[in-house]
């Protein structure tokens, strides 16, 4: 053992897995650099209206996590940056971090003076493009670091209204990209996932009707900070749906799409059925499934939903969804009754699965992927969260804790 201070761990991705891995390692005494591509931490979980099975908003737990991050001097959080290079060396890895141009810098106090003067509108990525926001704005109400972002590409030529409005000199329209080099002891990759694209599921209406939405879009529809202020409505006419159909395994467990089970969609739909019924007690909810995968304590949630009035669980994968007048026509075999059901729905939710999002990570870190595209750990580079395997938030945090431990061991080995 040498007396030189050990190198920090690099954690890539500040979603629930990356934050957890960073905090666990830091609280165990490791220096950690947590790099996030977005302007703020929280990743996919913050886009959820509720967690299952407790049906509580994720912002709660995330607030605890950001406080832990804030208070822990061992974690350096780098947002708006990506790892663009990684080279193994004697003590671990030499890593290149590329910072996106900081058009809004850390002098920003989130006072909000810039937003009203911004003439440009962009689709809101936090709301999955379901609404429009000014090009300069707070990314979402729970943003941490609490700092505005500017979508520079949307700026009208020559406009500097926001800079003029800012009294803190926090806006630099000419900011440039910069890079830094970091010596890391080991790496935890927690780059998360992307929803399976709706457009790949045209047979069940994906991309062909505004009223066929994905389960992640449903979370935004129900969320108070979402595009409708939390009102569950049909996108086409903004009316509350009377009949909501959930199509399970939409693109999962399917050799033509994602061959694996995405692990969360059954529970996500059960959860959504509960909050749809809470908000729209008259709505008829039907969940079309192949199997109901609700292991462990989640089984209780299945029982709860199955017992609800106005909720039906039908065994059979939906084969076709087609526009039918103002509604949508579904064609599916009810496999228990042994007959074809021609169902009508106002809103169809495709329970789309999770695609591992390693981005450039696999190439940058020289990482191998399994047949399904999930990252496979090698000695000093540990994969955590949904970049590692399909799992829910609870499993993801356990996975991240284990990953932090393994990364600490790997960093100790190379030091």
């Amino acid at each position, binding site marked *: 053992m040498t007396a030189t201070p050990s190198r920090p761990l690099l954690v890539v991705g500040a979603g629930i897995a990356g934050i957890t891995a960073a905090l666990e390692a830091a609280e165990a005494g490791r220096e950690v650099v947590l790099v996030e591509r977005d302007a703020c931490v929280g990743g996919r979980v913050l886009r959820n209206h509720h967690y299952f099975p407790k049906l509580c908003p994720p912002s709660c737990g995330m607030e605890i996590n950001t406080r832990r991050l804030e208070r822990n001097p061992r974690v350096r959080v780098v947002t708006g940056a990506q790892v663009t290079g990684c080279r193994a060396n004697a003590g671990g890895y030499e890593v290149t971090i590329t910072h996106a141009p900081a058009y809004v810098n850390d002098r920003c106090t989130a006072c909000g003076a810039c937003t009203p003067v911004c003439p440009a509108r962009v689709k809101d990525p936090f709301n999955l493009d379901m609404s429009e926001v000014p090009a300069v704005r707070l990314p979402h109400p729970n943003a941490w670091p609490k700092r505005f972002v500017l979508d520079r590409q949307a700026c009208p030529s020559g406009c500097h209204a926001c800079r003029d409005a800012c009294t803190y000199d926090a806006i630099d329209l000419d900011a440039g990209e910069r890079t830094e080099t970091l010596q890391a002891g080991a790496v935890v990759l927690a780059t998360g996932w992307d929803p399976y694209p709706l457009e790949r599921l045209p047979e069940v209406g994906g991309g062909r009707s505004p009223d066929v939405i994905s389960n992640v879009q449903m979370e935004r529809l129900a969320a108070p900070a979402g595009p409708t202020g939390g009102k569950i409505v049909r996108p086409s006419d903004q009316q509350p749906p009377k009949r909501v159909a959930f199509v399970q*395994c939409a693109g999962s467990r399917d050799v033509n799409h994602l061959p694996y089970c995405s692990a969360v969609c059954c529970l996500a739909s059960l959860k959504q059925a509960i909050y749809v019924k809470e908000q729209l007690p008259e709505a008829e909810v039907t969940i079309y499934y*192949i199997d109901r995968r609700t292991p462990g304590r989640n089984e209780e949630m299945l029982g709860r939903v199955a017992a609800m009035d106005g909720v039906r669980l039908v065994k*059979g994968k939906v084969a076709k969804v087609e526009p039918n007048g103002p509604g949508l026509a579904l064609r599916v075999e009810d*496999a228990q009754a042994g007959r*074809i059901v021609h169902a009508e729905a106002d809103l169809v939710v495709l329970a789309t699965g999770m695609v591992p999002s390693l981005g450039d990570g696999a190439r940058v870190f020289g990482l191998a992927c399994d047949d399904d595209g999930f990252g496979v750990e090698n000695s000093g580079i540990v994969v955590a969260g949904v970049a590692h395997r399909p799992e829910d938030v609870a499993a993801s945090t356990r996975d991240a804790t284990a990953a932090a431990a393994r990364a600490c061991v790997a960093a100790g080995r190379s030091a």
Partner: protein
Amino acid sequence: MAAIPTLLPSEEFREALRRRGGEAAARCYQCATCSGVCELARDEAPFPRRLMLWAQWGLAERLAADPAVWLCHQCNDCTARCPRDAKPGDVVQVIRALVIEKLAFPGFLGRVVGAARTTWPLLVGLPIAFWIALLAVTGHFGVPAGLPQNWAYEQLVPHLLIYSVFFPAAAWTLLAAWVSGRRFWGLLAARGPRKKSFVAGLWPAGREIATHTRFASCGEAKPRRLGHLSLMWGFVGAAVTSGLLIVGIYIQHLAMPLALTHPYKLLGNVSAVLLVVGAGVLVANRLGDTLKAGAATAFDTYFLAIVVLVIVTGVLAEVARLGLSPEFAFGTYIVHLGLVLSLFLTFPYSKFAHLLYRSLAMVHEGGSEAETARP
């Protein structure tokens, strides 16, 4: 509480299914996408999901008694969408082959033709050898001397000889088909109540067979439908021509060979064109996209090959009479007669038997209209 049904899984059937090309059935996880996709499936009796389940279990009795097995045209819309690559279209095709074998009378002929992968030389060779032997024994082997310029095949092979082979062969085939058809008809009735009488079901079934209207709803199989329709009407036309020729020879006392402009000749040649076009489309389909065509089992390929060879030798024999040497014509004609005899005799046991079973299934279902009616 309802009585728990007793299932009789047949390991023998499961093994046969695997051996004959239906092994993908094991991958099915009963999601029912296939039934939801199938445009042929009736709302109250969808398929192929239940067929896949029964195939996995080896419930041969249920499969043999289910009209759905025959209402499927193997368009493979289901296979294209199957999330498990369980190939329902191909599996149901193998089920059909196994049902043909199961219902065959006598059973051993069903097994012989069912094993076409290994027995095909016998199935093709024996009838040809039989013709050669028959012609040799009766002193007709070879081209007779002094053949006129405009000779007719009757001068090579007397009509009487042809009747003496094909009438008994047809009678035997009809008998075997009758026995198998009765078995199937009885199984259908035992499984589900009949909508209509046989006679009442004839009209809608006949209309569907004549037009292939429901077949047209099969997305992946559009060209195959036209090929099959053309081929089927070609065979009908050829059969009618044969009947008309018997009338022509024995009642109208027409002189053979007929002029090319004679209506009977025209009908025969139009039929030949339909046969060539239909067979061409089906062969091209077979050689093309394997997903759309489905996997080719030996049982299927054997039947398609016989049909194609009958057509090719038939057309070639006609052309040979008009221009090529009589020796070549004679050789071609013998092979043609042998292949037609093979086609006749294997009718109840080969894929050709779909004509029998699919027709009966359609009659049982009362034809197409009631089935495709949607709420």
